[in-house]
């Protein structure tokens, strides 16, 4: 059996199992450390009185510490509700002071120093008292001479063994009761702490937005990087190869009908330089197709269709150019879909249809091939799905065995 994940659930179970589990000890540890922290808060407040405004920020370290301390009675770590501030002290201060979480933490600190401090002290004192009375008979059993230790409750002295045993018999249920009461208090306090110090729904969704924003920026950065690499290759290696080929061509021309070994070598070098040029041209095109940048998606898809090994009917109707990242993703998906269709589906023809529906680009690639494509197998289709989801788009594939295979891509078009 797995241990209960909250103290309340453990308390509701078998009492013997609860009392002999780690839970009572964890609760005691939680409350004892609460008292220590509360005491430290009071000390800091006393020192902070010299410059009171600093106390506004007291909730921040307390909140951080309290979230960690929750681990004593809670299985999972509590995430911070704060955002990452811009660099610099000023930016940090402005961010923190404008956050609701900062003020929640301050409120929690006030509760900690007052209500929680006293309630926890009281609960711990009751437990201590009960436990102490339970051990009184041990002192008498140890045979200490009378008068060495005196236990006094009000006007009543516990000075004989039978009296001590009677007291212990009453103290035993009282102690059990205290353990339950203290554990309930610890559980309640933990829930209260978590409620105040963990991120709210709004703060959580803000994080999701931040994440998706940074993902979009990353995609755009990748896109820009591909273009830069493409341009560098075009301006560098490709130009030099063109010049080299041209000079080898001129050399051949100057040599005329030279039948020597040198003439043959120059001719061979010329051929190889031309092959290198062809190779680098294809590679540059693969990194980022220039025609997509220049003429947009319809022309680029038309070119894909012209180069495809099966007949492709492109029908791409767009009223205007789309954001570069959207064009690029759509192009990549169509290109991969055509490659996959040719490789696996053996279709007689493929249709590529694309249009704008409001703020969304829709792309549909249908082939009349054998079907049976499964995105969970192989990385090709999986990669397309990922590529679409990075742009907050969706990619659906229906491919019954026997065909037809239809791939539907939807991409939101956001203009910056």
């Amino acid at each position, binding site marked *: 059996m797995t241990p209960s994940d909250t103290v309340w659930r453990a308390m509701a179970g078998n009492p013997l199992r609860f009392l002999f589990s780690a839970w009572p000890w964890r609760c005691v540890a939680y409350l004892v450390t609460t008292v220590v922290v509360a005491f430290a808060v009071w000390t800091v407040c006393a020192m902070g009185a010299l410059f009171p405004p600093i106390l506004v920020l007291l909730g921040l370290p307390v909140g951080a510490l309290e979230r960690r301390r929750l681990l004593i009675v809670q299985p999972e770590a509590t995430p911070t509700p704060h955002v990452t501030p811009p660099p610099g002290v000023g930016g940090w201060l402005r961010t923190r002071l404008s956050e609701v979480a900062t003020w929640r933490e301050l409120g929690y600190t006030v509760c900690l120093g007052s209500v929680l401090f006293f309630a926890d002290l009281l609960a711990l004192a009751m437990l201590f008292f009960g436990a102490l009375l339970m051990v009184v008979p041990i002192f008498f059993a140890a045979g200490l001479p009378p008068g060495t230790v005196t236990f006094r409750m009000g006007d009543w002295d516990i000075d004989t063994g039978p009296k001590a045993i009677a007291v212990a018999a009453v103290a035993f249920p009282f102690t059990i009761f205290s353990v339950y009461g203290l554990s309930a208090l610890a559980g309640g306090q933990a829930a209260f702490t978590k409620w105040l110090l963990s991120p709210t729904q709004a703060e959580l969704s803000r994080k999701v937005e931040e994440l998706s924003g940074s993902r979009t920026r990353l995609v755009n950065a990748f896109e820009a990087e591909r273009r830069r690499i493409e341009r560098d290759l075009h301006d560098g290696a490709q130009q030099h190869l063109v010049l080299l080929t041209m000079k080898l061509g001129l050399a051949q021309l100057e040599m005329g009908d030279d039948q020597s070994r040198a003439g043959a070598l120059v001719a061979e070098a010329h051929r190889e330089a031309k092959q290198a040029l062809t190779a680098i041209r294809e590679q*540059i095109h693969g990194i980022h197709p*220039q025609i997509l940048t220049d003429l947009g998606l319809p*022309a680029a898809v038309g070119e894909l269709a012209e180069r495809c090994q099966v007949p492709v009917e492109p029908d791409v109707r767009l009223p205007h150019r789309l954001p570069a990242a959207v064009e690029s993703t759509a192009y990549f998906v169509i290109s991969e879909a055509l490659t996959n269709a040719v490789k696996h589906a053996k279709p007689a023809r493929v249709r590529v249809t694309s249009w704008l529906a409001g703020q969304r680009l829709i792309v549909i690639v249908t082939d009349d091939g054998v079907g049976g494509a499964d995105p969970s197998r192989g990385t090709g289709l999986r990669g397309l799905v990922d590529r679409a989801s990075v742009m907050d788009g969706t990619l659906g594939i229906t491919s019954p065995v026997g065909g037809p295979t239809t791939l539907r891509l939807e991409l939101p078009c956001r203009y910056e």
Partner: protein
Amino acid sequence: MSLRIVLAEDAALMRAGLVGLLERFGHTVIAAVGDAEALVAAARQYRPDLVITDVRMPPGYTDEGLRAAVALRAGDPTAAVLVLSQYAATAYAAELLGPSGRAGVGYLLKDRVGDVAEFADTVVRVAAGETVIDADVIRQLLARQRATDPLDRLTPREREVLGLMAEGRSNTAIGRQLVIGDAAVAKHIGNIFTKLDLPPAEDGHRRVLAVLTYLRS
């Protein structure tokens, strides 16, 4: 034949190389510029026999050179233009051929300058008013897969003739290339036009346009 040429190419090394190549064949480069705006200005000022331009140029490094070439052709029906492209795509060729003028027009893969003698020949042909389309573009168009391919009706020899015709070769050049007589070439071309249902077009540029339009549809 010595031609007066305006050249536009943004990379300095490449520009110098092209100037050297053109001068080797006896032509005069009256202006060698590095961007599309300067190209249009130089072409209007010098009214050269031929303008040679790269597609990709500053400031945007996209298709400024092609745009300038199209504008020149649209503005002056006698301006002969040869466009050098990093990557051969039919869409570019189609844009360039759009405005129909009497002057020559050419669309070549930049790599072709490596075949110096052939390149020099193309330069002269375009300046003389012919239409020249890169063999790569035509090969791509001919290899294009169609659901029902009317090109299947052509004999292999007729397909060869169609390809050369689309590249902008004259009947004489086609005959020389395939080692057949002028009459045979004319007969093949007649068959092609009939089999493909093309309107008859004697003039070189219009013939290329008709064939390209047909192949792209």
